[in-house]
């Protein structure tokens, strides 16, 4: 075990010794890629958070018409209670709605308050939100289907959920999450290419060593493992450094937001990516590094490297 660790350490240190500029360039590109990736993740993570917070405050109102009966109301109530996506449906009587209305209007139009007919125009309603587990992309569709079912029920006058606003909010989250994923894939692919290039040069530099190792009886894996470890290490170090860097940038940005536009209270709502995603990014770095070097070294030796290089 100690032996293989020292073999890998010397392998890596040799790579850095012989190809310092290339190794540095590779490392910088990898770190930059991971910074971008973690930036995108942080952004979409926070957008999702903010949007979810907004989404939670979205209310659906089911207004009853004047002819609605007790039966109509209890039918709707039963439907809402049994629906898995509906959060805390609340029945608001005409009177309750009126008093809320009066409260809100008191300072604007005191005359209205004395109008006895007012209660006729204010409908009773059910108000409810959506369960938290429904993610932002699904909210619009859920609301649309719910509204469609509710609208045709007896006694229901109208269903309102701020249709236009919900629509654009839903599109925004969808575009952001698709865009983010697409971006991450592009970055990951180019990072893999840069990495592969560096491993390739590491292999070329060791051509002679690989031949000799084979000739004294080293197995294919004995020869390949240091390269794979080198890739894994590179991916792990690059992703860790990138996350540290991103955290630094994030913190100063958050500070800036806090000082400059405190009234939006954004700084209290945005957060750096959570520990689980942080770990996932590092593990992804390690695996991607190991994988791309494995792809490079898969065919470097099949037992006859010495004779193949002469052909």
């Amino acid at each position: 075990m100690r032996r293989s660790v020292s073999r890998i350490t010397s392998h890596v240190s040799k790579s850095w010794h012989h190809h310092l500029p290339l190794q540095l360039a590779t490392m910088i590109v990898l770190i930059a890629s991971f910074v971008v990736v973690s930036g995108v993740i942080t952004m979409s993570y926070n957008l999702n958070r903010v949007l979810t917070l907004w989404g939670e405050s979205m209310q659906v109102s089911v207004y009853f018409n004047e002819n609605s009966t007790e039966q109509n109301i209890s039918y709707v109530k039963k439907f809402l209670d049994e629906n898995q996506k509906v959060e805390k449906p609340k029945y608001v009587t005409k009177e309750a709605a009126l008093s809320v209305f009066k409260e809100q209007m008191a300072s604007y139009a005191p005359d209205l308050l004395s109008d006895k007919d007012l209660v006729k125009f204010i409908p009773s309603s059910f108000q409810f939100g959506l369960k938290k587990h429904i993610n932002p992309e699904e909210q619009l569709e859920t609301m649309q289907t719910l509204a469609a079912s509710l609208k045709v029920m007896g006694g229901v006058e109208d269903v309102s959920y701020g249709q236009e606003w919900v629509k654009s909010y839903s599109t925004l989250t969808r575009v952001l999450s698709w865009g983010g994923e697409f971006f991450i894939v592009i970055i990951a692919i180019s990072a893999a290419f840069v990495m592969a290039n560096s491993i390739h040069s590491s292999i070329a530099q060791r051509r002679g060593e690989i031949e000799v190792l084979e000739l004294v009886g080293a197995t294919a894996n004995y020869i390949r493992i240091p390269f794979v470890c080198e890739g894994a290490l590179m991916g792990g170090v690059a992703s860790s450094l990138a996350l540290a860097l991103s955290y630094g940038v994030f913190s100063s940005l958050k500070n800036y937001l806090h000082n400059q536009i405190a009234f939006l209270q954004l700084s209290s709502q945005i957060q750096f990516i959570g520990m689980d995603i942080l770990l996932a990014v590092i593990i992804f770095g390690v695996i991607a590094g190991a994988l791309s070097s494995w792809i490079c070294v898969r065919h470097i030796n099949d037992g006859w490297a010495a004779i193949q290089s002469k052909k």
Partner: protein
Amino acid sequence: MIHFSHVYKTYSGSVHALKNVDLNIDKGEFVFITGPSGAGKTTLFKMLSAYDRPSSGSVNVAGFDLGRISAEEVSIFRRRIGVIFQDFKLLKDQTIFENVALPLLVRGDRPNQVSRRVADILEHVGLSNKANQRPEFISGGEQQRTAIARALIHQPGVLIADEPTGNLDPNLSEEIMDLLERVCAQGTTVFVATHDLEMVKRRKKRTIKINNGIIVGDSK
């Protein structure tokens, strides 16, 4: 131990380096192979050590069919033999100690065991004081002795030596040949290519002559 049957080796550009070579060598034999430069000695050794494959015919060494050997088997086979390459094939950026240790390291021996064996064999070939040098900083003869030490360290069943005394002075040559004879006496089949006909005469061992890729004489 070693069986060649109708072995041909043709390099690109239709260079026929070996032509219809038949050869049988028993376990524990000591054999010299002589012939002018370009005769095919190194090519014969390449067939013998699974460095390269024959163009046709069969090469069988220690029970391995080297024309058809698989990638997994070839590393097992190479651990059973020791080869002193004509150009040494030492690793430039590793010390003499590390170079000599390679055959033990690749088969996973324990570090303290490796250290002991390496120290032992370096003592044997008179290189104890060069253990931490790199090959480029020692003399040709010292490099040759490093190659010999690496070929012997894992006590192979077959030792193949391509010009093992080419860079050594007469005294050292005799010492190395004595060493190879001792190795042979312990049961290793030893196969030595050399230009040094005087030495071949003195040693009175089986001698195979090769010329133009054809075996033209066998003292057995």
